[in-house]
């Protein structure tokens, strides 16, 4: 197989740069694998390792510092047949730490070559995540305070299914790269090398010292048995095809006539767990079953299981312009939390507003018409009070009527949920309730 090196753009690294040998080994690995340029995409980011894509006649994607794994993931998932190889320095490794961990956990079939020369070459030899504490670098004393990152251990702990730490100067580097590319999953090769332009001006590092240090660490190179699993893209496609196709939203037929004319605003004041938002939705569906236009806005704290839960629903025979309620037709006062959040509301309403007040829930003084309902006395749990309050409205023929609420329940619920909801409504509708 021919070399994929770009003859018109030969490598331009500093004399003696460790990256140079990796360029040749990578080309040899491509040849060993019999890859053509259009079978392969090189993805790189910032730093000297970011020059790699220009030296090869392959597809190429060069982006921002530390983000190469994100582009590679997008490309590989959309083009599963493509061999995607990422080159990244120890700088990109540090700034893209979250992406490295995510890639290890995810296991997309991408090969990552870390061109690890223990410092930031391009910007003048500052310390990186892999700089030894004892090294002399352009970051003054700062690297003495940090512990160097052990990529091999971190990657394995994060779920990498293939991890190798090698010397850029070892025999058979091309075979090591070839094996990583062949591996069906996320494969990392951490390639230790020398940066003569910056690092070895102030520090002693030789190919021999690199090999000795690696021997001392004694990392296991190759597939990580404990992390072996199906490649992400393949697993994704298998699970995805088993999902049901989403159906377009189901329309509700307009068959009823609302008992009251005009536009109505209804405000549900409850607390988390009272199914206020669902009740708001049911009210909207009930309105639509009478051909009304609807808007629904919800207000709740981002804590999920406590605090106020409020729904504001507008029903209107015509287009709803401003989707906020100045003078509500009905307020459902279902919990102290919701009432407290909207206390000011009670000052501005008059006898035209109906307040359905759950017994035990205090409300501020108001001129509104008040209907106190003892939901607890009816044997209803607090989670059903919102729906029960809608049933009270329907029973009073205020804004909606029973057939509209029934249509909403039939549209929204199935099976046991429908039976349960209908039972709540029946309890309220019972004569004398």
């Amino acid at each position, binding site marked *: 197989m021919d070399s994929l090196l770009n003859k018109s753009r030969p490598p331009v690294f500093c004399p003696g740069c460790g990256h140079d040998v990796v360029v040749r080994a990578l080309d040899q690995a491509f040849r060993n694998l019999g890859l053509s340029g259009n079978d392969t995409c090189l993805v790189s980011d910032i730093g000297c390792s970011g020059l790699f894509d220009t030296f090869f006649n392959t597809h190429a994607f060069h982006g921002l510092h530390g983000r190469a794994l994100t582009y590679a993931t997008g490309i590989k*998932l959309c083009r599963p047949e493509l061999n995607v190889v990422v080159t990244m320095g120890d700088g990109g490794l540090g700034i893209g730490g979250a992406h490295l961990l995510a890639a290890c956990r995810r296991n997309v079939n991408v090969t990552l070559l870390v061109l690890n020369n223990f410092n930031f070459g391009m910007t003048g030899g500052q310390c990186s995540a892999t700089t030894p504490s004892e090294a002399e670098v352009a970051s003054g004393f700062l690297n003495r305070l940090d512990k160097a990152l052990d990529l091999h251990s971190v990657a394995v702990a994060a779920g990498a299914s293939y991890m190798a730490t090698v010397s850029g100067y070892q025999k058979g580097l091309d075979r090591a790269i070839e094996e990583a590319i062949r591996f069906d999953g996320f494969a990392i090769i951490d390639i230790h090398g020398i940066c003569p332009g910056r690092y070895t001006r102030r520090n002693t590092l030789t190919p021999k010292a690199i090999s000795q240090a690696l021997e001392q660490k004694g990392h296991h190179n190759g597939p990580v048995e404990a992390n072996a699993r199906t490649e992400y893209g393949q697993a994704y496609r298998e699970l995805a095809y088993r999902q049901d196709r989403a159906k377009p939203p189901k329309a509700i037929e*307009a068959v009823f006539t609302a008992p009251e004319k005009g536009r109505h605003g209804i405000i549900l004041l409850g607390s988390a767990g009272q199914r206020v938002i669902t009740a708001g939705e049911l009210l909207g569906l009930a309105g639509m079953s009478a051909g009304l236009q609807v808007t629904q806005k919800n207000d709740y704290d981002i804590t999920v299981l406590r605090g106020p839960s409020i729904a504001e629903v507008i029903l209107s025979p015509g287009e709803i312009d401003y989707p906020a309620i100045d003078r509500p037709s009905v307020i459902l006062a279902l919990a102290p939390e919701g009432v407290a959040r909207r206390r000011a509301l009670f000052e501005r309403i008059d006898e035209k507003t109906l307040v359905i007040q759950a017994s035990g829930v205090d409300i501020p003084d108001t001129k509104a018409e008040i209907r106190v309902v003892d939901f607890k006395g009816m044997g209803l749990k607090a989670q059903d009070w919102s729906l029960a309050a809608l049933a009270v409205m329907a029973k009073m023929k205020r804004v909606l009527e029973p057939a509209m609420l029934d249509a909403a329940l039939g549209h929204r619920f199935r099976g046991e949920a429908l039976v349960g909801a209908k039972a709540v409504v029946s309890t309220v509708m019972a004569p004398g309730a």
Partner: protein
Amino acid sequence: MGLTLMEGNEVVAWAAYEAGCRFFAGYPITPATTIFNTMLRLLPPAGGIVLQGEDEIASMGYCLGASMAGWKAMTATSGPGISLYSEHVSFAIGSEIPLVIVDVQRLGPSTGSATRGADGDIQFMRWGNSGGLPVIVLAPEDIADCFPITMHAFNLAEQYRCPVFIASNKEIGLTGESVDFDALERVPIVNRLGSPDREPFVPFRTAPGSDVPYFLPIGDQTLVRQTSSTHGENGYITTDPAAIRAANERLERKLTANIDSFSYYHEERVANAKTLVVTYGVTARAARLACRQLNDRGRGVNLLVLKTLWPVPELVIRLAAGNVKRVLVAEMNQGQYALEVDRVLKHHQVEFTGGMDGRLISPSQIVEAISG
């Protein structure tokens, strides 16, 4: 016909799907998360891909890779996420990568209020990139409007090879509204223009008579180069000032010279108007009611609802202002787009009403601003 209750975020997702979007990546954030939720229901069973990024930077990176692989991609977030999108927005602009970005704006500054609305990112979307080159920003005014606006966003991203923002708002994204789903406005789909010449492909050479380069995807037969570095037509780094200047001027021109062909807006005019209200987004609903109330009293108020915000549709604004004396800009921030309107209308008195307190601008606030 029948009605269905949908949130703005759901409508955006359905429109994206119908526009041909098959790749979505995002990081959970209120009030944008329901776009992610809906895309997750829509795309995987249809052969598409949805990823939950480890952060917002990654979500954008996944989309950029997917888009260059030839797929239509979208991401969605809110202000805190747009902050993290910045480096990749710059990349998508400079390297001409089609992408739709939904900003369901929430009350800022910073993490602000997750469940309160605002239009506080209107200048941020335009200028939150290194280099300051233009982007397209479209703003839906209500839930049904999210459908055509999203389809336009995809079409423009494809046609001009650029990032397109959808400037939504919590008050649209999370508001449920009755819509006739089948009757939502669908617009014809536009796809990026493939190169007629396969070998050799010059990735940033423009089509004749156009300022937009042909597109070929990474991964096909023909080799494609993409780079965030300052590049020549061939996609390799260049230091030639003439080539760099020409490319940067082209990136600006390809959008600004064509703004009249994608200036989406809505106008309501009365005879002998003295005042023009300019607005966008959810505030259009209050402004429409305010104008109607004022016109019932014979106040002569015209309304201009802009749906293309960036590049600024200057011609539309000038024509709408015509002979009116006063122009009032109503927006849910402290006067961001009013700066643009003021810049365009040099001979008009441009006033502003708005504010950021988590509440909608009310019709009465607009009425008072005009009557007062």
